[in-house]
């Protein structure tokens, strides 16, 4: 068992060794699950057109731009952290996960501000679906943030190896999926 010391308090041991077959299996399992996540948003987007057509009501249009920028930046940092984990560079991994968590947190704050200043009526079709899609996405972002923070805590005890950094990959995949969904939601809610 490989073990090393990064900090003084905790001993770090390598993530459990996985065969390439297992890595493939767990990764496939993750993507099978993500199909269902995609269906959730497909359903919501469908409901948006079903109920509100292509109506767009005037809302706060500055904040979502900030959200988009923050999310795109966090997408970049998260992919860097994934690459770091793939090379077994756990120090860089921790740096970039920390940075990603910060950006994710900021993006959530911006979503919250956008939510609070949207000024739509949830009892109307567009308003209802607007708050629902943004809320669903924000909830998923919250889960993503939890995943990043827990990843950060885990890296104090577990060192990811080029053979097994599935946990990092999964978290980053999930986050990147959310960024794609956000961009779609942004277009669908604000422009179509």
């Amino acid at each position, binding site marked *: 068992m490989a073990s090393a010391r990064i900090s003084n308090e905790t001993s770090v041991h390598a993530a*459990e060794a*996985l065969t390439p077959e297992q890595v493939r299996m767990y990764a*496939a399992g993750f993507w099978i699950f993500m199909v*269902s996540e995609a269906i959730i948003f497909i*359903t919501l987007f469908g409901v948006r057109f079903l*109920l509100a057509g292509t109506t767009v009501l005037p809302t706060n249009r500055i904040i979502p731009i900030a959200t988009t920028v923050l999310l795109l930046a966090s997408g970049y940092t998260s992919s860097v952290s994934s690459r770091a984990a793939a090379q077994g560079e756990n120090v860089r991994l921790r740096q970039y996960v920390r940075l990603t968590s910060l950006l994710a947190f900021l993006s959530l704050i911006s979503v919250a501000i956008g939510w609070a200043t949207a000024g739509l009526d*949830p*009892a109307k*079709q567009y308003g209802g679906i607007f708050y629902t899609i943004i809320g669903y996405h924000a909830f998923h972002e919250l889960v993503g943030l939890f995943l990043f923070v827990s990843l950060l805590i885990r890296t104090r005890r577990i060192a990811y190896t080029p053979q097994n950094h599935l946990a990092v990959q999964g978290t980053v995949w999930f986050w990147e999926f959310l960024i794609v969904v956000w961009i779609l939601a942004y277009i669908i809610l604000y422009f179509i």
Partner: protein
Amino acid sequence: MATEMGAQHTGEKEESAPQHRPSLPPVLRGMVWGGIAFALLNFFVIAIQRPEYGALVSEVSVSVGMGGALIGWLLGIGGYETWLLPWFGRPAAWREPEGWQRYFSFSTDHKVIGIQYLITATGTFLVAGMVAMAMRYNLMTPSLNLFPTSVAYESAVSIHGTLMLFAVSVVAIVGGFGNYFVPLMIGAKDMVFPRLNGISYWLIPFGVLTILLSPLLGGFVTGWTGYEPLAARSPSGQIFYYIGVFTLGLSSLLTAVNVIATTVFLRAPGVTWGRLPMFVWAMLVTSLLNLYWVPSIGTTFILGLLDRLVPTDFFGQGGLPLAWQSLFWLFGHPEVYIIMLPAWGIWLEVLPVFARKTLFAQRWALIGFIVIMLMSNLVWAHHMFTDMGNAEMIPFMLFTELISIPTGFMYLVALGTMWRSRIRLTTPMILVLMSLFNFLIGGLSGVFLADGPVNLAVHDSYFVVAHFHYTIIGGMVFAWLAGMYYWLPKITGHAINEVWGKINAVAIFIGFNATFGQMFLAGMHGMNRRIALYPAYLAHQNLWISISAFVLGAAFASTMVNFGIAWVRGRQVGANPWDAKTLEWKTASPPPKENFEEIPVVTEGFYGYGNAGAEPEIFVPRVAVAADPPAPPTGVSG
């Protein structure tokens, strides 16, 4: 590799905190944690909301509280040690109890989980069945007698339907037999994600209890379909309907992920796609349907919940009430196949074993599975013929008629297998033949319902009630019972009393056909659905339906007793009492912890009887078999 991992496990054990049992039994701890979480969140929301009249609960607070209760329950049941601690990099400090206690705690053993599913589904079936008995008791006379109000009766109808559909028929075979036998039938040691499997089971009791507790908030009157905008005006129990069904759906979804990944990755050497047992195929196709449609209905239910809580107006008068119906049936009709595909899987497993004959035209059954999977989402609107303009009916009439063609392939295969075979009339075989007959009646009555003019006459009447009970009880529950008789010797190592098995099977068959056969007529005589009282001219017929229903209920109860006796003190059986060929019979009864002494290597198909060539003739391309068997999944990954 194995030694390496072993070393690592011991290493983890050494440095971990001493493993001690939780101070409370897991189920109790789950309840306590869930209760505490519910109370905290509930009062937190109440403190913010400050409802009038000083109420201690509101719909919002209960919904939020239930979310917390779910998490508390899952953590308390063992999720804390097996999920949360490893999630933060600590070693998993969970020791699975031994003996009977392991069925009451978090488990990662697919066999334990399968039994948990089976017992829970059976229990839920009995509870919801008792509700049905109460309904039939009330319907013995044209006026209210057992239920004090019409709302109480309608709540009973709703709870019966919701539990039977979401917690029994989509759970029993997929969760129970699927978890237990998919790994065994493909020669694997466990599922790909054992911990996910453990969590997915413990969502079921939560969902069932949530729905059962809905009368605390006044029940709900919408039936299992939850049509809007009535749902928005229903008593507050409606939110338990949304939350309960959502939780049950989540469980189906996680099981689906597991079954798909397991089937794809953990097949033993030689279990090619072409040789995959039909039950596993059925599970795979069902899981794909679950994967697509459960998230969709989950989202729809969240929208419905928001309509009550915020309130938004997606499906109310400002919105589209019909959108709810479409979204519901877009899931609701595939759900019929989520229910029936596993049952067909059981037909096709049981028939060749007891007919001692090679499965006939196996590829046509598979074509049927796949075509049904692809078409199942094209027929939803036949539940809504009474809502649409005439011309809109035509495509759905067409698809609905067409989907009966691949369904017919199951009969093609079943009958072809029986022709010139050597049938052993054991209880599972009898039940499968009864299931064939019942589902035939269900399917043929579906032909009437698919027809526009007839549908407009009999829709929403007892004709429809009879039709779907014929498909779901007659098709699925009979197949489930057949599976119980067929596989219980494998699960328990004990044989079931065949004489009583046959008597019970015949009693159920008679009770069932008497009950629901008469319902066809009641429907045509103008008896509409979901009513606690009815015009006096229907009294005679309803009395006889009720009496038949009590016979059916008694026969089910008697069957349960037979299972119980077999489980406790049935005769010991060997590994392969039925002389079957699939892999689950190649290991001891009950199977050892890791299923097989060594991973089996399969060299021929599972349905080759007599001197016929052993290879099945499915034209699915063979997938090259990896030289090494895939490594067994480990409990905890990074």
